[in-house]
């Protein structure tokens, strides 16, 4: 039996997180026309630590809350919806890898929020650091590996103008000999699910944003959503959101149960979710017309994040390769 709807307990976790984010990190916090100050991301990360999010799926004896991949994936969707920095997912993964390595104190520091982590992404032989700030740890997902590095493994940081205005971007070179922990295949799965979860969340967010706008914006004396040209685009956004969500939740359950086809389902989820996120965020801009092209509108923030998230797991190309290699059901 496979049940893809949250039970009452799971819904409660989601609602609590959504409530916190609506209260402390509403989308209005993002001044869409300006670069977002690093300190603001730090504040959101601190609020999430207060809720215990980074240890949500770790057992209680490892300092976690004791939920599982299902709850954690549902929470990633909410974080994607509110454009929370991916450093939240990085903290979750770093804490889990440290706990696996028996370094409970360092894991506890991440879960409690006194230390932070960030993602890296390969650029040729060099690396980007995403939302680096004062992160003590760096998470790199590449191919079939997930690796945790100490900050000291990064050389000097060179700030670059990032595509995503809500997050800082630096170039550096990671000294791969200094890896702190090689994550297990289970941690790789967790990383893929967290990133795909954020993609699903922002896909759902722009579907709602586009539909809301199509209901109020009037042209030719009608809400534009009455016209099939717009209505059908909105329908496609709903299809993209539904398929991406369903595939993600199926993958999360398969991962938790360690089914033989889990890797296949998880790679399919990253692929479907990323295609959905990028297509939907583009279409949302088109549905908004001129205003969608302005810096003032938040539409571009979702598009840029959908592209940033793709490189947290090594790009779509890598997902396709992994998917073709994986064993189907």
């Amino acid at each position, binding site marked *: *039996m*496979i*049940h*893809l*709807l*949250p*039970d009452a307990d*799971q819904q409660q976790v989601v609602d609590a997180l959504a409530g916190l984010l609506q209260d402390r990190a509403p989308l209005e916090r993002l001044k869409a026309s300006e670069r977002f100050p690093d300190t603001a991301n730090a504040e959101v990360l601190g609020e999430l630590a207060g809720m215990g999010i980074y240890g949500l799926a770790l057992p209680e004896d490892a300092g976690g809350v004791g939920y599982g991949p*299902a709850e954690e994936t*549902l929470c990633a969707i909410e974080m994607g919806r509110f454009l929370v920095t991916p450093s939240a997912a990085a903290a979750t993964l770093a804490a889990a890898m440290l706990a696996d390595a028996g370094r409970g104190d360092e894991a506890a520091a991440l879960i409690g929020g006194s230390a932070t982590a960030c993602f890296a992404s390969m650029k040729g032989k060099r690396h980007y650091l995403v939302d680096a700030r004062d992160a003590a740890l760096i998470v790199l997902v590449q191919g079939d590996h997930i690796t945790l590095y100490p900050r000291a493994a990064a050389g000097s940081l060179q700030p670059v103008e990032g595509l995503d205005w809500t997050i800082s971007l630096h170039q550096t070179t990671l000294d791969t000999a200094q890896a702190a922990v090689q994550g297990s295949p289970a941690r790789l799965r967790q990383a893929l699910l967290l990133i795909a979860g954020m993609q699903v969340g922002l896909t759902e967010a722009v579907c709602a944003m586009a*539909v809301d706008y*199509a*209901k109020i914006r009037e042209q030719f004396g*009608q*809400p534009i*959503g*009455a*016209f*099939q040209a717009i*209505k*059908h685009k*909105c*329908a*496609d956004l*709903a*299809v993209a959101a*539904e*398929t*991406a*969500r*369903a*595939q993600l*939740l*199926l993958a*999360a*359950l*398969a991962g*938790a*149960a360690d*089914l033989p086809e889990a890797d*296949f*389902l998880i*790679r*399919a989820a990253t*692929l*479907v979710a990323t*295609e959905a996120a990028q297509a939907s965020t583009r279409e949302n801009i088109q549905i908004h017309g001129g205003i969608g092209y302005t810096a003032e509108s938040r539409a571009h923030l979702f598009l840029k994040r959908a592209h940033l998230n793709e490189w947290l797991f090594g790009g779509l190309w890598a*997902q*396709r*390769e992994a*998917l*073709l290699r994986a064993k*189907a*059901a």
Partner: protein
Amino acid sequence: MELRTTQEERLFREKARTWLEENVPKEPRPPHGREANDHDRAWQRRQFDGGWAGLSWPKEYGGRGLPLDLQLIWFEEYARAEAPEATNTLYVGLNHAAPTLIASGTPEQQAFHLEKILSAENVWCQGFSEPGAGSDLAALRTRAEIDGDDLVVNGSKIWTSNGHYSHYQELLVRTDPDAPKHKGITWVIGQMDLPGVDIRPIRNMAGGDHFCEVFYNDVRIPLSSVVGKVNDGWRVAMSTLGFERGTASMAHQIELTQFVENLIDYARDNPGPDGRRMAIEDDTIRSRLAAARAETSALKAITLLSISRARRGDAPGPEGSITRLFHTELMQRVHRLAYDLTGSGGLEMEGHRGWSRQYLEQMRQTIAGGTSEIQRNIIGERHLGLPRQPVIAKGA
């Protein structure tokens, strides 16, 4: 959210696998014509006799009353055993007429028809579309006047799949021409061999003749064949369209998954478009194969989501159109990929395993049973709550 395999599921899967291994027909299914229909009926009969028909039908109607989870396992094993395609000439009876009779039929209608549908004794076809009523189905004009205990039917239907092999028809007729268009329609069981029924097959672009035009000239159908009430046919029809758009296509979805795996195997073993490397080494083909694999998985996932909603007790709603739209468009993408994989060999109609013909046949998917455009309207208006499109009156 939960995933677990129960002992009941394990035992059921084993039994299904064993039975299928011993019973799946060895000969391939003929692609069309009466031979295909005969093949479908013989295979359905064997499943019926073996106790494998109507798994999720309620027990009181001759089914086994099993949950959809077990039905899904059956289809998984069915596809695994490479059993004949499940979406066949019996589809309308099994997935359309029977659910309608279960939902809205009289006890007499149910007792007479349901078992005969399940055992393939009777074949059913649909009589909804008309030359002037396609996407605007409620504009249908086939007239039925009450005369004593009978309805007297005059008019014509079109796109009636398998009409010439069918015994019965789910027929929508206009019983009140003065009522608003959705209010004057009646759903009635038509018998295809009644005097005044004239069936003419239409050849389709893939060479098959599975669909027909049907003409009615003073055809007398007893009022006892009305399903639901006179003038309540629109509601009766819509309740089963929701079913069709939801979980009815589960079997086909699983077959599609198997088909994509076959494409990947083919691409590993056969040269690609440049004639030098294997097809799978071609970046474009690779990327399309990966997308097909991911998307057929997502198709199964949204079906599992529908089953989850049904388990919670939700009636099939407009989100069924999401499944249908995604499913039909994905089928076309996958079959176009199959066609492309065969290179110039695709110029032969039967080519490699009939992939060329199947590519052509897929054109119907986004038209039959409500076009993609109508599905998008349903999703936009009923699922997302967007306003209905402005209707511009004639002369305005």
